[in-house]
């Protein structure tokens, strides 16, 4: 056996590796699909600000939406405007979110990739001002709109501990706290949504292989929806997949 000690080869490899290790990695690659796919990942991770930057970079290189070829023989649904709408909505800028949603619809993005339609509807509903309630004459004995179900009081200190654990990545503790909260306030859509949120995070962190966990997520979402059909969890806390799950049954 010959040892790999040819000096020229070793020197060349050393140079290549030194350069590879020493060079700062580029933040943007030369193709349109690299920033776009990075943006999709950023959105899934909840980093809406970065997603906006990357989507705008992708749009500057490829303005037209559609089903486009990337590397190899791979094609992807290129829906930058819809993704931008999601990102702006997560950032709380409803005007930009609605503008991008309109562009997405004009470009046929939501038709091209129907899986985005529920999320688009969430954006529209979240960003469209609710109609003012009709004033009806009070008439003793007449039927009137039933009142919203009473929202049970939640323990703010406990919720604070749960959210802190969740944000710190201690999903086990957060799950324990939110489980107790959901048990104590079984009629609270917020408590159920928090339980769904933490279990979704555990499902994601565990590599998305735990079928029982995602089933529990669906159950918690279903309970929350049943308790308050008009309730939507805060978009800033929820990844798009969970929001889409939320919207599935509407």
């Amino acid at each position, binding site marked *: *056996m*010959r*040892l*790999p000690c*040819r000096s020229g*080869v070793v020197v*060349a*490899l050393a140079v*290549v*590796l030194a*350069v*590879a290790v020493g*060079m700062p*990695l*580029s933040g*943007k*690659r*030369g*193709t*349109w699909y*690299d920033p776009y*796919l990075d943006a999709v990942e950023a959105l899934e991770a909840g980093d809406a600000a970065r997603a906006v930057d990357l989507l705008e970079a992708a749009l500057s*290189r490829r303005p037209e939406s559609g*089903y*486009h*070829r*990337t*590397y*190899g*023989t*791979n*094609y*992807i649904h290129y829906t930058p405007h819809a993704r931008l709408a999601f990102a702006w909505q997560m950032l709380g800028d409803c005007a930009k979110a609605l503008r991008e949603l309109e562009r997405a619809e004009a470009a046929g993005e939501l038709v091209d990739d129907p899986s985005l339609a529920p999320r688009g509807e969430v954006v529209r509903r979240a960003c469209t001002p609710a109609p003012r309630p009709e004033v009806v004459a009070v008439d003793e004995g007449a039927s009137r709109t039933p009142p919203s179900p009473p929202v049970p009081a939640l323990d703010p200190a406990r919720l604070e501990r749960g959210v802190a654990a969740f944000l710190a990545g201690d999903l086990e503790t957060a799950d324990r706290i939110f489980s107790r909260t959901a048990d104590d306030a079984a009629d609270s859509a917020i408590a159920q949504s928090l339980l769904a949120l933490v279990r979704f995070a555990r499902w994601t962190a565990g590599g998305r292989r735990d079928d029982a966990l995602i089933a529990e997520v669906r159950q918690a979402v279903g309970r929350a929806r049943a308790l308050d059909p008009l309730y939507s969890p805060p978009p800033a806390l929820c990844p798009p997949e969970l929001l889409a799950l939320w919207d599935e049954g509407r």
Partner: protein
Amino acid sequence: MSPTRTSTSVLMLLMLLAAASAPPARALSDEEIFRDVPFNLLNPGARAMSLGGAFTSLADDSTAAQANPAGLVTLRRPELFFEVRASRLDQSAVLVEGPVDGEFFQGTVTAGAVSDPSARFSPTFISWVLPLRRVAFAFSRLESLDIRARTENSFALVGRQAIFDPVADGGRPDPIGFEDIDFALTADADISARIVQYNAAFAAELWSGFSVGVTAVFGMLDMDGRVDNLFVDNTALPGEPFAQPTLDYATRIDDDDSDFAWTVGLMWRPAEWISIGGTWRQGLDFTVEERVVQSGLGHVRATNLYGERFDLTLRTPDIAALGVSIRPSEPLTILVDVVRVEYSDLLEGFKAGLNRIVFPETEAAFTVDDGTEIHGGIEYVWLAGRTPVALRAGAWREADRRIRYAGTDPGLALVFPAGEAVTHYTGGIGVTVRQAIQIDLAVDVSDRSASFVASTIYRF
């Protein structure tokens, strides 16, 4: 007549034959496999094969681990790649025959060679790629050589041969008469050789559109060989010596070896429609032990020349490749590779004189030229609904890699000529299902071989 006298006569007569403007012939050798080793140097994968092997500048799937490791950073999702290959090298048969009317021999000399490689079917490339942002890792296994072949060389002399007085007046031998001769030499050989490479690759994107990659290669050779050199005197009466095939000398190989090597690659995409790639692939050095069987009329002489056991070196060629691919429109990609193959590496440790015709001339000169190969291909992808379907075609020119005699002996030059460059035509189709499973098929046909490759990629 002794085998040694016979071989000397064969050499002499072949020289005469060469002078008599015999038709051009391919090599005649009992160790033919060592003079024309069919390495699998083409980039792996049905997609690359159908593009004429031109993949250095594209390398945008998991075969990049072998084709150009710098291309690994193109991938966005982990991939698992699997390839099976069926290949057939045509049986080659050569016959040289001619009359000789010389001072010492009048008659006919015939020399023939038959090589019959087995058709092969095996998984030749498996790869797994893990892309992580601007870096990527890949692990792969490649069969770069898998040959099983049987060769049989024969030499016959029929006619009248001079009988010499040991030393006549004046110090030179003079013929004192003629005798009828009819004898044959046969070299019967089986060769089985397999090289398996295990590769670990790393790639990094240094700046936008420019990446480098390096692959560490661990190669293993397993070789078995048998060569029996037999002698028959057809003029001998039944029961007399040499009336039946008689072993002159024989060699055996049953050994394995391993080696490390490197591949480095660069990839530059100055714009989305063009990509430039380059690789340098270091060859593997293997040394296996060959031994002279201790039986036969000539084994003592063979042992004295080479020893009872001696090393045989097989070095795979170093390869440098430069390629360009352009994508004038989204569905269309055009690729060209220029590949320099250092076939002269095969001569490292080359042992002359083992061949029955050359024996025992250990100083006989053999050579082979380095080759420049041109590979070109075109790919067109269209959408059948949401399913990409690719149609591909290509061609490549395989350089002559046959080791040839380079000395002044015209007889040996006739017996061991250069080979010929061969043009291969390739084609194939591919389909990508649900953005996750890619299936490709490819064929490669030439005048002397045919290969079929099916490969699949699963993207996680």
